[in-house]
């Protein structure tokens, strides 16, 4: 009796595994990338910068950070991702900055251009600068999951709370998705 049931259970497990494996063709090692390991990806085109990335990640600070696509940056003197709207004097005082943690470094390059660099150790991923840059600038500041920081939770706590469904599981081989890099992918 016990042996029969054990055999049936083995058969059931094999059947289930077979169904999962053959669903999209046989995933021989490396051939079917979809069956390989996955990571979480944030699609900046769907992102609405609601600010939940900063508070919902299981890590403190969040593994989502602002990522700067320098190739898209206009090097504006009045950067709408850096300065608060209505800033009168373009000075780097905290009262003028959009970033709550001063994670963006603004340096003079040549008249009238300024370079903006994100300090990832400070950035909390709130997306305030991303929103500012997207509204009036080129949209070179974008939120991305930084994979050396991400724990790759089975159930990403940001993905669960993302109002725009901008998070998805993607193959490990193609982890980043950024505007301004050819076919929008890294």
């Amino acid at each position: 009796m016990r042996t029969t049931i054990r055999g049936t259970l083995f058969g059931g497990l094999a059947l289930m595994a077979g169904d999962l494996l053959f669903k999209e063709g046989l995933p021989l090692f490396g051939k079917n990338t979809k069956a390989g390991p996955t990571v979480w990806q944030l699609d900046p085109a769907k992102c609405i910068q609601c600010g939940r990335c900063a508070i919902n990640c299981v890590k403190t600070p969040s593994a989502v950070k602002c990522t700067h696509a320098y190739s898209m940056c206009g090097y504006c003197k009045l950067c709408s991702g850096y300065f608060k709207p209505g800033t009168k004097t373009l000075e780097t005082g905290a009262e003028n900055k959009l970033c709550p943690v001063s994670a963006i470094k603004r340096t003079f390059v040549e008249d009238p251009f300024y370079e903006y660099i994100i300090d990832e150790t400070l950035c909390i991923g709130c997306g305030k600068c991303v929103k500012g840059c997207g509204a009036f600038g080129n949209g070179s500041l974008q939120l991305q999951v930084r994979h050396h920081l991400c724990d790759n939770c089975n159930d990403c706590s940001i993905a669960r709370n993302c109002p725009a469904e901008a998070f998805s599981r993607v193959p490990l081989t193609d982890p980043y998705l950024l505007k301004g890099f050819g076919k929008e992918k890294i």
Partner: protein
Amino acid sequence: MKLKRLVILVLFMSGLFLPAAMSIQRFPKPEFESGYVEPVTQFPLPRGEFLIWMDVAVLLLTISLASWLVIKKRSRLGVFWLSLFSLAYFGFYRQGCVCSIGAIQNVTLALFSGNFTIPLAVLFFFLIPLIFTLLFGRTFCAAVCPFGAIQDLVAFKPMQIGAWLNAFLGMIPYLYLGLAVLFAATTTDFIICRYDPFVGIFRLNGSFGMFIFAGVLLLAGVFIARPYCRFLCPYGVLLNWMSRFSWKHMTITPAECVQCRLCENICPYDAIDFPQTKKDPASHRKQINRVILLGLLVPVLVLAGVWTGSQIHRTLAGVNSKVRLVRLLQTEPMLKDKDELPEITAFRSSGVPQEQLVSEVDGIEKDFLKGSRIFGGFIGLVFGLTLSGLFRTPYRTDYVTNRATCLSCSRCVDYCPVIKK
């Protein structure tokens, strides 16, 4: 003249709003004269693929070692040290992801959803412990699962809580498993991961509520050993089923039981079945009648469960974010623009027509109705079988481990004075 003005206006407006929608380069990239070199955007890579396969290899190794220690070597000390290693590796080093318990949801999602393919490594994490349990009993619980290991460490003063309490608390995992499968199959939520109590400890980071939950479990675990494993763990349900029919299983005594009763109070998990004397014929008859009565009760309980399931399916569907969004949109006229929710903003900017979302949600609610009925029936069945099982007292001469609930921790082995010749 007026028309021309209008055309210009329309052209101007479209020119103004088109870039906003498509994010066209508003400010061209400057041509620097000072020889400035633009920095390169950094893309740090995730953990390499081979490391995931290393996790699978470590799982295979530890579970093989655990089975050998439990079945062949009969060493509590070995099991203890191995469980410490598993706690360090799967818990603190791998930070609890991916684990076999959570893999239930990935497997369910892959079985029910067309566009989710389960990574092979995750499938292995789900299958390997089940296969080993079918062969050797719950050795995974004994020394491989980091959840079990952390709770086993604090079980200082375990007390026995009795068959009835054990049986009733033991039904919670079925409820948890049923809900987890329901929510995963409808692509709603991964509740096992969401309410994972120990991952916050492994990561030394987590929400306040989950820390409190973990603290309560560990404190309770001092007196009621391994409360998560016995009264919450949904994977434990599957292991329980597998273990009942396992090929080999840990035994208390290596040879013949001498009825010394030394192991009687030692099992922290109430998983030792005591000897049962044969009942006298009169009470035996009474007992059979009771079992038949309960057997008739089971179908009634299943039907009651199905009915309850169809009553609560709308509440359960409310957990789904899309269902919630539609319910919000339908009550939306009452919301003011200024306190608009990000969900509604995101939905409006996505350009998906509301009808499409509504029809999608109708489908989800139908799935929930079907799923809730099955879930309710399943819980009714479990309830009925547990109840009738409580009245079943099979004849037994020796002290033996209960295959279903025994976690193969091997504590009792050290208390058995019998030596194999």
